[in-house]
């Protein structure tokens, strides 16, 4: 098989790419509710239904809470299940996020990241998903539209793996990626379906073998349920690598749990996630071309956190710059920064970390901003640079 035969090139928005992948992945049930900037996914899927191009059931629910609840019911019945949301919608689902993961249901969800109200804003930051960070879902952040498309396919494979059986959230920034039209090399359906197979859950709602789903626990057993989820999260790291490897076999594309640029030489290393990873690499390349020595580590797989792999890239640099597109109000720094500091401390590495908050509520982060931020860490860290809100108006 030559790879060239398996691709077709299209110009797609991020949302459209998700819908196309969902259609190709032979999903049984989609239950979703419209919310900007995710709505295109729902509309596109409804278009596929109208054209007879989607064989599954499309359930246009009356709320996000019911969207995920319907997904829980459908997934427990043994179906391949998808939903999509954003911001307030994800917040409204919050209760059900824990139900889906606690019941070990391999639901896949696209999250077009958007900042939370109040004040209401339609644009991107990561505070929606970061607000639900500890919900037991696998969390991946995509960087461009083709990666959104590829990751959507990968997430089904990863979640449905018997060693994993955890739901996944594929994150990509609202408008910046959800509405951005980019070149996507679409894959043929047959190899995708061959790669995925059909979901084969060990347990499902089946009158021939009645099972009780969603029992009540006591302090005598609850902790062990959570421990099993924690172990599945750990196992996910290895399965993620397998899934990427198998996906690469027929697509020729691989991303990694992290994307490392110049991490083996850089004196200043920036850790970031989401669409700004590419922008920051461009900034780093420009600086390096001018004789500087900086690097970028883009975190793709955020939960489970690939701590060993991250650490392996942090060993060379003198200064770490962490970039958070969400605010943990009242904390010392954002969630990515806390993860990095905790990883460094755990490894006995003591190096200065400059924690930067950026892009809140959709504020742009451009190549020049990247250069500026790298510049701030050039001569070591100054006082007050430990936790900086970059780009906020004075």
């Amino acid at each position: 098989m030559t790879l060239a035969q398996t691709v077709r090139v299209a110009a797609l928005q991020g949302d459209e790419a998700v819908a196309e992948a969902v259609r190709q992945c032979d999903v049984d049930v989609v239950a979703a509710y419209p919310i900007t900037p995710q709505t295109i996914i729902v509309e596109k899927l409804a278009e596929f239904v109208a054209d007879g191009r989607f064989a599954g059931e499309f359930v246009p629910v009356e709320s996000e809470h019911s969207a995920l609840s319907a997904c829980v019911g459908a997934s427990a019945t043994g179906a391949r299940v998808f939903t999509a949301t954003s911001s307030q919608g994800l917040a409204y689902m919050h209760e059900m996020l824990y139900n889906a993961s606690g019941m070990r249901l391999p639901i896949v969800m696209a999250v077009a990241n958007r900042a939370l109200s109040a004040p209401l804003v339609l644009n991107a930051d990561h505070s929606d998903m970061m607000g639900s960070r500890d919900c037991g879902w696998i969390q991946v952040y995509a960087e461009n539209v083709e990666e959104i498309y590829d990751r959507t396919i990968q997430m089904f494979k990863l979640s449905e793996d018997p060693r994993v059986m955890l739901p996944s959230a594929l994150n990509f920034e609202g408008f910046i990626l959800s509405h951005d039209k980019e070149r996507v090399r679409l894959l043929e359906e047959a190899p995708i379906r061959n790669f995925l197979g059909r979901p084969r859950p060990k347990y499902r709602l089946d009158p021939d073998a009645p099972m009780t789903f969603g029992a009540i626990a006591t302090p005598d057993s609850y902790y062990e349920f959570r421990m099993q989820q924690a172990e599945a999260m750990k196992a996910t790291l290895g399965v993620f690598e397998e899934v990427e490897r198998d996906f690469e076999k027929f697509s020729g594309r691989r991303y990694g749990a992290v994307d490392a640029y110049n991490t083996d030489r850089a004196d200043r290393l920036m850790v970031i996630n989401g669409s700004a990873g590419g922008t920051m690499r461009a900034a780093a390349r420009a600086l390096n071309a001018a004789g500087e020595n900086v690097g970028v580590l883009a975190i793709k797989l955020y939960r489970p956190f690939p701590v060993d792999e991250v650490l392996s890239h942090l060993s060379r640099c003198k200064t770490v710059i962490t970039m958070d597109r969400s605010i943990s109000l009242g904390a010392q720094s954002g969630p990515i920064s806390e993860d990095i500091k905790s990883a460094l401390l755990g490894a006995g590495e003591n190096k200065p970390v400059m924690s930067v908050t950026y892009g809140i509520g959709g504020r742009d982060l451009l190549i020049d901003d990247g250069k500026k931020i790298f510049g701030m860490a050039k001569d070591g860290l100054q006082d007050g640079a430990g936790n900086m809100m970059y780009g906020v108006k004075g």
Partner: protein
Amino acid sequence: VYEQIKGLKELPTDEPLSPGHRLCPGCGASVVVRQVLLAAPKDTIVANATGCLEVSTALYPYSAWNRPWIHSAFENAAAVASGVESALKALERRGEAKQHPIIVFGGDGGTYDIGFQALSGAMERGHKFLYVCYDNEAYMNTGIQRSGGTPMGAWTTTTQVGSARGGKPEAKKDLISIVVAHRVPYAATASISHWRDLMTKVRKALSKDGPTFLHVMAPCTRGWRFDSAKTVRMSRLAVETRFFPLYEVEDGIYKLTFPVPSPKPVEEYLKLQGRYSHLFLPQNASELDTIKKGVTDNYRRLERLSQITGQLYAPEVQQPAPRSA
């Protein structure tokens, strides 16, 4: 097409809800579940809202359910059932599963109040399932707090009886009317005291293509304050006093399935329950009258609705051909 139940001997001997569950002695909910599921096919899938029934029947590592059963939250049982139904449809097309009857159990809190949006959405979308509200008229699982299903005048721990106020000031929400407004093919009330009526209604509901609804009174010995040996008697009195009329709404047509031409006094029902004891103090006489008037008015409303909707929605009567001159 559905089968009427004539006698007890016809009932399956298979036990859908095993003994040994942790519901209180004299709990109406377990009787509701048994009667409903004994009338339903054995391959029924059950979805359950959080509540007494759920916490008492599925305490890990035990389960009383001899049916595939799913619970995930308080307010979403109808949405979960939507997902189950949709999944079965999709999987059936692939030959990976068959359709099965789906029955949802929710208490009054999970149905009248917190789960109402999910129920309304699911009914509007037309998912095929039978939703059974077992109505014990308050949040009993958390310790007797008022719900939209608590009747006027009833004591609960959030509608206490004191010198300034006595019991719930508001009327019970008219759930069936709201359900009927969704134009579902079948909605009915039922009582465990009239088990044949209840089971026939379950079968009728399951024979319909679309969402159906059963509102069953489920007396709560703890919350209503009555002798736990009198659960069925309590249900029967609710019917015989017209406090809880048995009726159905089939394709828009109302029908009293157990007409009560000469009702017992409402007091007979209320007096057996500690939650209403304050109503019989002289200073609360007018409140008792209001409750009694509400019972009379509601029954008259149902009689009138039966006449009106019978004429409105009945198949058109064949008009005699005009005589030639």
